[in-house]
């Protein structure tokens, strides 16, 4: 399955920030539970699939080819930990009580 075989013409553009308004978080402003291990590795990473696969769009491309993580938006799914091709994401659970807190689930 390659990207070429997929008709992407009807993929709608979505403003994820609007959707994230529906989520409740207890943001930990003191400790990031996600970190880029080595920014140089991101610069060397051509595809940067993290910019697409993260379900909350927490991965943002920066000038110079680095990537920044808006960890406060994370829903702790784990996708980035296993799908970052060079495994360049430090991933742990937020401290107890912090992070996403589903109201309905």
């Amino acid at each position, binding site marked *: 399955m390659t*990207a070429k075989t997929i008709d992407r013409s009807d993929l709608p553009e979505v403003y994820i920030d609007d959707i994230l308004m529906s989520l409740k978080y207890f943001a930990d402003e003191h400790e990031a539970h996600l970190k880029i291990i080595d920014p140089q590795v991101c610069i060397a990473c051509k595809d940067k699939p993290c910019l697409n*696969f993260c379900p909350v769009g927490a991965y943002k491309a920066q000038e110079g080819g680095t990537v920044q993580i808006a960890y406060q938006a994370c829903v702790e799914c784990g996708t980035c930990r296993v799908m970052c091709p060079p495994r360049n994401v430090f991933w742990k659970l937020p401290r107890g009580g912090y992070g996403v807190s589903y109201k309905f*689930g």
Partner: protein
Amino acid sequence: MVDKNEKLTFDVIVVGAGLAGAAAAVTAARGGLNVVMVERGVAPGSKNYFGGALYTHSLLDIYPDFFDRKPPLERPVTETGFWFLSKDGMVRMTVQGGKVNNNPIDAYVAQRAKFDAWWAEQARKEGVFLIPKTVVVDFIRENGKVVGVVTDRAQGEIYAPVVIICEGVNNLLTQKLGLIKHDFKGNATALAVKQLISLPAETINTRLGLRSSDEGLAISVVGDVSMGLPGLGFLYTGKDSLSLGVGVTLDALSAAQIKPYELLQRYLKHPMIAPLIAGGQLMEYGAHLIPEGGWSTMPQLYTDGAMVAGDAASMVNAMHWEGTNMAITAGKAAGETAVEAHRKGDFSARTLAAYRTRLENTFVLKDLRQYRNMSRFLHDHPEFMDVYPNFLNDALGMFFTGFGKPKKQLYSDILKSLTSRRPLVKAVGDLVAFGRTVMGI
């Protein structure tokens, strides 16, 4: 529960107060043990997420008076089956009444933040101690045996001779114990994203053909919803909400460079789906991984002083949408084994092996073994999410509109709508292979 050496000590520690964890905890408590559940969320359920429906058999197995306890459920599932989507059409294959109308109904739609909080509260009523807002970060080991856990609280060590790990799909503790040698794989794990959309109950009833708010749907949506990627969509009816989502295998999603929330939005804009949710308000978005590898990604289930249950142990049957019931059944088996170990005074792997033996005798390990090749099969045969749903739409569409056409020509056209997509030999081969995979041969 603080012993003379000032150590916080229990008979059993359960990591995670979800469906598996609270089932394990209450089972151990009924066996007379002092049990603590350590939960990382502000309350049980706040980190939990699914489609989804719970299965009555597993709920009654823990609480025979389950329904008398007034559980926070949405609707019973009185109609269930497949919707096959083409680009602009749909074939519905659902069943209602008859065997779906058992008393009690076999499945109920629920919302996990509400339900799991209630589920854990039932365990607390039977003496289980709950420590929320606390992450277990490591184990305490003595002579290679697990004898407790380290939490992220100050002086956060808790001791118990047996630990039941129900940590969920991100099974980092299970990995830390060496019960599985690697993190999970992108080809055996699906990312599911969902929107919960509020609508008046009467609107839901009218649009979905439900006679009252005591009827509800659980639908697997196959075809255009996954854009040809190995994955499925779903629709569940809450009391006054609809839950719609889509789950796709991680590596295919990543390779396709599709944003999961755009894939979901595309599903919600589908001409057959959009009218169902028109005017609805987004109540909550979310995302969660599903360990669809099942048997193929299952860790060793026990070691000296520890057992693993639920998503952490890959207990998911992706074909039958089972997982919550496996978690509950496995949690109960782990709880029973903990009681047995205390009776023997032996917490070694040799005694805890009884956990696996118990599961061998249930649908959990029987089905996981039988379906061991299913996630790989669907991953390698995306035509089941693309070719066949489209063919089904074309074939039935042509069959039921073939008025005034010579029928020999009609059947030839129908066959062509298959063979133009997939040679007949291959199609037959796909069916046989699918059958073999289901049968586990």
